[in-house]
């Protein structure tokens, strides 16, 4: 019997297949279907402090706009006695999800103020979440803000949240740090129980017919998996924190590769949105079949086996590898037009 179980954030999971924060977790019924399809835990969609604040401002603005201006209509909308403007909806969702499934429920939080991070983290814990993923999603554009300052903010958030809650805390970060290994280590020391690699920023597109910048949510491609694969491979064994791979995990082979470089879990989003929840079963079966055919007994056996520390060629994870890759690109001229063609290794 192949053992797919793994440990993530101190939680014992039946398999490394964990749906990441996505619209799939918005309905409790869907979370139940995820569990039924083999999800070993679920990360809920994120609670955004900024969004709550924005909605509050919007509501206040629209409820007061145009009021007390005209004798016949001193207001336009009824004002209920009570509004649910805080995170109550999200907290209820945690409670309902916990009631509905047996797998661990990991909440996700994106705060904008230290107070917000702390308050919401506490409430999330009280609502019964098994763990908290801090989705630190910031695009810093002010040239006056130094990298050191930004990094310190990350660490402050992690310290603050850790001091506020007792449930495990994972930190989802982007890869855009000058020295990710150093940052990962500092997050680890700040108390992060796990690192989720990596957050993908939604990058805008241009609508050429309307000449508008459009927010464009793209599902990940298989290539996206390379980045977490690289960094999990490098970080494995150097941190106390668990490592979760997210982004580009589409096929069973992707899961296996990421486990081999050291991921505790692989997080799934685009592939489930694209192929449906039942794809979880397909992935699990694929992992089992591969392990069976390659005579692996357990996930734990393969975890980290291809990490930088344990792989036959550790330098393959480092910068030199990039130089080698560049050499494999040939400058070619085809029918008078210049283009770059990526050649296969050895060609």
């Amino acid at each position, binding site marked *: 019997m192949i053992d797919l179980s793994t440990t993530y954030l101190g939680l014992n999971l039946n398999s490394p297949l964990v749906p990441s924060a996505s619209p799939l977790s918005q309905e409790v019924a869907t979370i139940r279907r995820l569990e039924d399809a083999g999800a070993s835990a679920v990360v809920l969609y994120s609670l955004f402090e900024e969004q709550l604040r924005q909605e509050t401002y*919007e*509501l206040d603005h629209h409820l007061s706009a145009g009021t*007390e201006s*005209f*004798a*016949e209509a001193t207001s336009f909308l009824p004002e*209920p006695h009570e509004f649910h403007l805080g995170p109550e909806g999200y907290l209820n969702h945690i409670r309902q999800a916990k009631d509905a499934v047996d797998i661990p429920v990991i909440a996700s939080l994106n705060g904008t103020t230290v107070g917000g991070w702390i308050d919401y983290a506490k409430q999330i814990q009280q609502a019964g979440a098994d763990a908290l993923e801090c989705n630190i999603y910031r695009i810093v554009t002010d040239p006056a803000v130094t990298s050191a300052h930004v990094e310190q903010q990350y660490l402050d958030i992690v310290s603050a949240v850790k001091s506020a809650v007792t449930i495990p805390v994972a930190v989802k970060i982007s890869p855009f740090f000058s020295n990710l290994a150093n940052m990962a280590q500092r997050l680890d020391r700040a108390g992060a129980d796990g690192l989720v690699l990596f957050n993908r920023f939604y990058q805008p597109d241009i609508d050429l017919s309307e000449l508008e910048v459009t927010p464009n949510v793209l599902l990940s491609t298989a290539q996206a998996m390379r980045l977490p694969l690289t960094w999990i491979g490098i970080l494995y064994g150097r941190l106390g924190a668990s490592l979760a791979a997210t982004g580009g995990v589409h096929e069973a082979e992707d899961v296996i590769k990421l486990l081999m470089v050291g991921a505790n879990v692989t997080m799934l989003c685009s592939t489930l949105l694209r192929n449906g929840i039942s794809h979880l079963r397909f992935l699990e079966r694929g992992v089992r079949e591969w392990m069976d055919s390659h005579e692996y007994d357990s996930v734990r056996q393969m975890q980290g086996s291809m990490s930088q520390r344990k792989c036959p060629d550790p330098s393959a994870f480092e910068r030199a590898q990039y130089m080698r890759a560049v050499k494999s690109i040939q400058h070619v001229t085809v029918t008078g037009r210049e283009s770059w063609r990526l050649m296969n290794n050895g060609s």
Partner: protein
Amino acid sequence: MKRKFKTMDANEAVANVAYRVNEVIAIYPITPSSNMGEWADQWASEGIPNVWGSVPHVIEMQSEGGAAGAVHGALQTGSLATTFTASQGLLLMIPNMNKIAGELTPTAFHVSARTIATHALSIFGDHSDVMQCRTTGWAMLCSNSVQEAMDMALIAHSSALESRIPFLHFFDGFRTSHEVNKIEMLNEDDMRAMINMDRVIEHRRRALSPDHPVLRGTAQNPDVFFQIRETSTPFYSACPKKVQAAMDRLAAIVGRSYHLFDYTGTPDADRVIVIMGSGAEAVHETVDYLNARGEKVGLLKIRLFRPFSVEHLVAALPATVRSIAVLDRTKEAGSAADPLYLDIVNGLHEGLRLGLGSLKTMPLVVGGRYGLSSKEFTPAMVKAVYDNLAVAAPRNHFTVGIQDDVSHTSLTCDPTFSTESDDVVRALFYGLGADGTVGANKNSIKIIGENTDNYAQGYFVYDSKKSGAVTVSHLRFGPRPIRSTYLVSKANFIACHQWIFLDRYDMLSSLVTGGTFLLNSPFSKEEVWEKLPRVVQDQLIAKKAKFYVIDGYSVARDTGMGSRMNTILQVCFFAISKVLPGNEAIEAIRKSIRDTYGRKGEDIVQKNMKAVDETLAHLFEVEVPKSASSTIEMPPPFPAEAPEFERNVLGVIYGNRGDELPVSAFPVDGTFPTGTAQWEKRNLALEIPEWDTKTCIQCGKCAMVCPHSVIRIKVYEGQLLADAPSTFKSTDARDKEWTGMKYTIQVAPEDCTGCGICVDICPAKNKTETRLKAINMVPQPPLRVPERENWNFFLKIPELDRRNIKVTTIRQQQVQEPLFEFSGACSGCGETPYLKLLSQLFGDRSVIANATGCSSIYGGNLPTTPWSKNADGRGPAWSNSLFEDNAEFGLGFRLSIDKQTEYARELLQKLGGAVGEELASAILAASQKDEADIFEQRLRIAELKKRLEKLDSPEARQLLAVADMLVRKSVWIVGGDGWAYDIGYGGLDHVLASGRNVNLLVLDTEVYSNTGGQSSKSTPRAAVAKFAAGGKPAPKKDLGLMAMSYGNVYVASVAMGAKDEHTLKAFLEAEAYPGPSLIIAYSHCIAHGINMTTGMSDQKAAVESGQWLLYRYHPERAEAGENPLTLDSRTPTKKVQDFLLMETRFKMLTKSKPEDAKKLWAQAQHDAEVRYRFYEYLSKRQFESKAAD
């Protein structure tokens, strides 16, 4: 249970009682009573029980007639039921009221008395509505103040049960219904003590029930009807004493004592005023003042007007009375006298004859009229009435409060007479609707009323504009209950919250010597003096005023308050006025902020708290110099080039001095000129659009969507530019048919409201900087003068010949001159672009019937109208009849026009030889299908008239009178969804069924916009609206589908923001179709809780999600054997949720009732999908024409 003191208006006070002592409440919105229904609906949605622990059922009906019917039914089956209404609404209840009274059914209706529409509609208060109920058999109980309104509401319900007579409890619309005052609240124990449960049980026993069946509502014949009608007499005879008993019971419970007729004044008064309603409070105040100065005057307040108790009337009057003035707040034209006067004369006569009371001889009784439509009624006017009684031959049938220089009925008043006491703080605040001034003042009243022993009163005056509305708050605080039911005219504190008012209103004329003036100024304390108009400087000096400034604009901006300056200026008021000690006031404001905004989240609370902290640091006293230095003069309200009537009458009204105009200034039948909004230069916009000639693709969309018709397009010959101002913009016309001509888009800088909807819709982007479009918002002040010059030049450029405009494409059609311009609608209004389009296409030949609602207010509220006329003097003729009858009113236009046209044709056929056979034949044969045809016909008619004038025959004279009817007329019936879907639906349906050539335009905002956002049957499922606070559970009524069922009605559903060419096509097809046409036009609205700048984008999203469908149903296609329905919407590309998230009316449900929102949103998605599939099926089905049969 201890009673609390609270500050509230009478609508809330009355609703508090009515809600708690009833079980079924049927409501319908009408100003100024709507708030009572809104409170009831809100409390029911919050699950608040009545005094018996059960939550009343509250239901909105389709009209007041419907509400009365539902209440009648509820009463007949044993429930305690009530409703609230006013004015026309009350008239619609009269048939049921007669039934309810005839059946001796106990209930009380609560009426905020309002003017009945006669020569004009008025939303304000008088007794013309309740006086029309005198014959219904209802008891009529009147309240004079907010406290009394609460007390009398309970007395009415109690007395109704005791007497079995239904009660009409009324109080003055606006003056009482909307006056905020400090009152002692009746608690539930009080209410239970006043409602005799034995009587309730008896009421239930009389109910219709199959368990003890009876027959009620029979038809009766001459043999017995009369006798049976008389059986009720004992109940009416017994009623007054039962009412007095109820009053006494209340007095025993709460200590406030009332009588059927309450006398106030010296016991030996020789002159007495008899009055009912809020005016009695002003009289009471004056009586106290005059008697304290040695006069002997008295006041008789009538509480119970019906059943009229002669016994109690005469018993209440002192024996010393020699003369009485009875004041009526209504005009009964043609009557021997006004109604209250007649009753008092008769009562005194009968009382004396029967030897009742202490009067020995009949006093001299005169009657007078005051206060129609909330006209001010002041102590000066009261004194004039007493002075009239003092003369040897007092004037009878007088008026007071106006200058009647036509019939010479008016009494002369001394404007300097005042009874205001020095220990009462009197404050005036001038604000803009958008800045939160009124809200802040209501809050201040609450703070003072509920934190001190002081009494407090607030009354708020709004102008008639929906954009840039000016509000004036009148506040009083003092140690005694405040009876001053009139505006503050001698203020010791005046605040101007907007700089732009300085050269529009003479605010300081009301300031007392030594008073305080607070100015919200963008200029520093050092700069501000030099920026003031001369009249302001002069008055500050002359009145030795204290002068304070605050840059509230900056504080609001820096603290995230935006344009809301409520908290900031409230802090200033408390800081300067010292009504409360410094720290105490600030702490009270902080507590109030937490109470008011706490439910909206801590962020909102903190934003306001920050504003409090910042304000005091920016408030400065300015030393007033000894002499004035300003050369800035206040401009006249209307410019010199305006016609005389516009300048001397409409301009005076616009300048806030309408009260000064005499009777002779006005037309006798409510007829006013059109084209008058052009004289109001309101300069509301901080930013206006600027045209970029190089980027512009000349599509015309900016002009099309402009809600205020301030973006105009002209195409003209280049030589006309010879005298153009240097900054006037022009470019080559791009349209091939206009090759060689010039093209200009011009903005009316002083009429623009700055909504920005034009920029949102503009599809052309600047190629080097894509944030810029072909039209961009830029600051108005630097452009005001040059663009004013450009605008004036633009107006002089001749309009393009309408025959040369291809109306089927927007880029050409938008060159047509709008005959609807500069309305006072909300900035960014979604309705007005449709009306402007109508006016461009057909305005020169249209007659418009306009249902009461937003469009009748921005279309026809004095002083001006946006409906205008072209250079030939032609334009839309417009009228508003009522809310409920608009379709029928418009059908009447059609019938009338068709009859006169037919008669003209008959006459022309008879006169053919006399006027010339060729001309007559050409006129009779003219098809008038397009502009060219109509142009030719107009030429023919002009020639016909010339020839007719030379003929001396009765037929020729008659034909001359109707000759214009030989040019095709376009009848438009316009109104909102409240009219079309609800109150006017029966008429609309009948008009559609008539087959006549009328065009019905429904400006569908999916809510009662004008009365403040109540749900209609057009309101979509899941939308939050008043009367649907928990989200509307039912889907939107499909009016278009109902109309299509006739088969011969042209029906179009349009949304300009989604597909403007489709809207244009629908208007053209509808007008061309010779039968009834119905256009249902999606109109975004401020009541949706949206960003009005992007309202057209909301329309687009509504269509893209399937929430709104675009279609046209053309009966002529059916006649040609084609499917008459064209579905012009594509398959939805968005989820309904994507649209719902754009609008607060939907989104707020996710914040108030998240679980309900989830269900309703899912149902809304289902509705849209089902509707689309159904219409798709209808539009694709095999259609079998009659011809095929």
